[in-house]
């Protein structure tokens, strides 16, 4: 206590002054909208006026088939895409970390490159690739696999698959970077010890690499889960939620409720808060499954 007093009032004053701007912006653009939207979720917007609606917005969700459909779609993306992506990222990171690999810089850049593309641009690119006269149909027809071009985006299974493929392409490299960074911190001795003990590459990967990357795997899992729950650009641009809402995500439904349909900001906020709630639950689950101390 005495020491802190000596550092003096000016120490504190400057400290607060330095963070005040950032904190004010944080208050204004993050805390305030978050609190205001919580309040909004208990209100209804009719004939130009907001009025308190109690839990009506939350109750409405239980009878809303499209909301459940969007929830189902989003979870489907999450359950398939997140594990596949993280596993691929782990393998790629391990390969890129291998001492035998040449031209590391080139491969690392190539893997990371998709992450710098704009979400809208790459989504439109995937839409074009899978369109009627797109490259996929062209190649398949040239190879004689297809007789006539196929409308992938009008088939709900394919449409979902394309969204997942697009996300894998865009986000795998992003996670590779995290794993690569973490791999640098794994003591080389552990790999050498494994080698001495006669472990093969697969055993080393599962018994040495993965356990030591556990904290970072947990981090990427939580980040990817959050990202997928907020998925918007991809489905908005590739499928617009179709066919028959089979690719509609929660975020896109929130957008529709706010801006496409007669504005229902209260209901949209209520859905947003359900998403927040789901994220918290999922994060707790992931922590309890993966975060246990050995």
């Amino acid at each position: 206590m005495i020491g802190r007093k000596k550092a003096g009032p000016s120490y504190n004053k400057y400290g607060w002054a330095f963070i005040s701007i950032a904190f004010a912006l944080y208050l204004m653009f993050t805390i305030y909208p978050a609190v205001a939207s919580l309040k909004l979720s208990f209100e209804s917007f009719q004939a130009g006026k907001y009025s308190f609606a109690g839990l009506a917005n939350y109750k409405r969700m239980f009878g809303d088939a499209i909301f459940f459909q969007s929830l189902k779609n989003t979870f489907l993306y999450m359950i398939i895409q997140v594990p596949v992506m993280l596993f691929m990222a782990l393998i790629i990171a391990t390969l890129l970390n291998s001492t035998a690999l040449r031209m590391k810089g080139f491969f690392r850049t190539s893997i990371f490159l998709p992450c710098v593309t704009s979400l809208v641009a790459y989504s439109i690119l995937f839409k074009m690739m899978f369109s009627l006269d797109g490259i996929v149909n062209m190649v398949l027809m040239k190879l004689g696999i297809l007789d006539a071009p196929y409308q992938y985006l009008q088939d709900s299974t394919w449409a979902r698959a394309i969204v997942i493929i697009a996300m894998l392409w865009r986000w795998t490299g992003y996670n590779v970077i995290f794993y690569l960074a973490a791999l640098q911190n794994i003591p080389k001795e552990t790999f050498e010890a494994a080698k001495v003990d006669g472990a093969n590459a697969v055993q080393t990967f599962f018994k040495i690499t993965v356990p030591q990357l556990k904290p970072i795997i947990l981090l990427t899992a939580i980040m990817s889960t959050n990202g997928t729950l907020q998925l918007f650009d991809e489905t908005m641009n590739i499928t617009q939620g179709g066919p028959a809402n089979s690719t509609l995500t929660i975020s896109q439904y929130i957008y529709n409720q706010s801006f496409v349909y007669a504005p229902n900001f209260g209901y949209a906020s209520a859905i947003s808060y359900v998403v927040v709630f789901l994220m918290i639950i999922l994060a707790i689950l992931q922590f309890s499954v993966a975060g246990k101390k050995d």
Partner: protein
Amino acid sequence: MKRGLIAIALALLAVSMVFAGGSTEAEDGQKTITVWAWDDNFNVAVMKEAAEVYAQVNPDSGVTINVESFSKEDVFVKLQTGLAGGGTAGLPDIVLLEDYVAGKYLNTFPGSFVDITDLFDFSQFLQFKVDAVSMDGRVYGLPFDTGAAALYYRLDLIEQAGYTEEDMQNLTWDEFIEIGKDVLDKTGIPMIVEIANNKTTLVRAIMQSCGEWYFDKNGDISITNNNALRAAMEILLEMRDSGILYEAESTEGRAAALNNGRVASVVNAPWFISSLRQAEDQSGLWRAARIPRIADIPESINASNVGGSSWYVLANSDVKDEAIEFLQTVWQGNTDFYDTIMLNQGAMGSYIPGYSTAVYDAEDSFFGGQKINALFAEILPEVIPVNYGGYVAEANDAITTALANLFAGRTDIDGALAQADAQLHNQLGR
């Protein structure tokens, strides 16, 4: 971490408002009327033309008209967020709204638009347009362009199947499908194009040709007992099953299919002609006719409407009197102006006295010398007014979903209608 899209949207809105700007009054007393519209070659150009006409007619008005161009979605979203936020910041003085979405704004933001019922002589405008811009008997929008539905078809392909121009007049949908099957047989080309994930253009055209809509006159949902909607679904399904329906992936895909000669006809509005004209090599091959009617529904006529938009003056604008005077001066009584925009932009206005001018006798070589504007002018007065209501986007989505399930064989027409009805009831909280 992002806490919900709303927060981001509001933050973005705050930023966009800074840049959007509103009406401003310069120091020299010169006033600016800001207008929002969305198509540089069409309604933006038309409004700029109107501004020039106004400057000539009324050079001492002290008013500058500034037409700002956005994408259509941006106009709607910016207006929606601006009105929801309250105040006038970042809002225009005059805004163009599609008739299909106007009801949403009039319902949701009452008092935001000037009641112009007594400021114009609306008997001079098309009745169905006036109905579309009215709520509870009061008029809020000045009717601009119309979407007189026409059947554009390739005469050469029809002739190859053994039909003539004469055979394409005043058809029923059953007759149309029969012709379509013959065209497919003889030429291998599908008869009609519609967008795969949104077939509502045809649905809407067919419904209004029967005087029906997603909602009845009282604004109540009309889906399960809507004979015209049921018939539209049957027609679409039959066309698909017989192979005469070409399902394009997008609006671009639809234009490409037509321009490349992969499909023989399309039902759409007058502004669609500009898409057809892109294929210069098809000049003279196209003809336009009235859309088919439904034989089993006595109310059904060979006339309908798809889309169209109107001008609205914002009630909170500080130059609303000037804005109204501008609209009164140019958009009412001045048939020369309507001639100009018809000739230059192909804008099919809603002002009835405008239809009797020489422009409508012009022969169009792209349509083999057909008097195409005269056809629209003939169709428009017959269009049956319907109550579009405030929830067209919701209804379109419900029907699109139901149609996708119907086409995928997951349900029959009764099931599809029941599904759409349930979805719409849920969306409207009824």
